[in-house]
């Protein structure tokens, strides 16, 4: 038996503090979790959509990558498939361009016009873009192709929402 004996009063106050603290924590934790939830979600970056394209398989030749996500149009939810033209630039960085022509929204194709090889070509009004997405003056489009932000996760390519490119 140790010399310092715990009195009945002390024992009760320790126990009550312990149990009370435990209960208070149980009540406060969910509240704190709710309060910081938006912060945690932002860290996950949920806007990026997985594709089936492996980053390691990309070359300097643009390939079409299709990806599907859910889009809500009023109460009607549907699967939307979008494409991107993806290639590796000279510096090894991935470039993901939106295939939507900046003129009136047709789908542009890579290298499909024999007279203008190695360009993106829009069959609707013969708009053309350089490989880096810059619109070629004298053709209908007035802005460069939109660019997708991208991420690499487990070797696969993830694409975000296409953004208009700032003037270089």
């Amino acid at each position, binding site marked *: 038996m140790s010399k310092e004996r715990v009195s009945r009063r002390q024992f009760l106050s320790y126990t009550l503090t312990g149990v009370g603290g435990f209960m208070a924590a149980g009540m406060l934790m969910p509240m704190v979790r709710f309060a910081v939830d938006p912060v945690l979600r932002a860290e996950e970056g949920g806007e990026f959509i997985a594709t089936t394209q492996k980053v390691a398989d990309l070359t300097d030749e643009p390939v079409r990558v299709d990806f599907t996500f859910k889009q809500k149009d009023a109460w009607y939810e549907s699967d939307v*498939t979008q494409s991107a033209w993806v290639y590796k630039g000279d510096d090894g960085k991935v470039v993901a361009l939106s295939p939507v022509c900046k003129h*009136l929204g*047709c789908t542009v194709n890579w290298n499909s016009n024999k007279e203008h090889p190695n360009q993106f070509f829009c069959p*609707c009004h013969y708009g053309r873009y350089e490989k880096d997405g810059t619109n070629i003056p004298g053709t209908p489009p007035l802005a460069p192709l939109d660019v997708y932000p991208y991420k690499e996760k487990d070797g696969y390519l993830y694409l975000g929402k296409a953004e208009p490119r700032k003037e270089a």
Partner: protein
Amino acid sequence: MKWISKDVQTFLSAKEYIDTAIVPLYSISLEAELKQSAEAVEFISLLTAQVERQFAGRLLLLPPFTYLKKASSEITAEQLKNWELSLAAAGFQHIFYLTADAEWRRQEEKYDGSFIWLPAIPLESMSDGQKITLVDSQVSQLLPLFTQKWQENQGK
């Protein structure tokens, strides 16, 4: 452009660039061929949506021209002729009809527009991935029909 207010707005402001109209032709049957008619509608609507995505900036996809399969073909043909005349009057130089109904092949020469006839493929048992591949390959075969037509008229 689709037949929705946002796209139609764009159409009105860029009319000089949009000279092509697509009209899907749906034959409706409520009797024995009900299922085939639904399959055809499903297939053609997927197909037109994909064509629209490719050429959004040059064509307007109209709401489908729907008719009863058992209705007399003269009346249906005349109604479509009316559509064609109105479209031409609205300034569309190229009109394409997409249909799975073989009946139209016999009427083809009465119209200025081009008929694209495709046998309907039942999609019910396919996975989404298979559907996409199938429709994609069909559409990629259709695209030259459009670009050819555009080039022909450009030469004129």
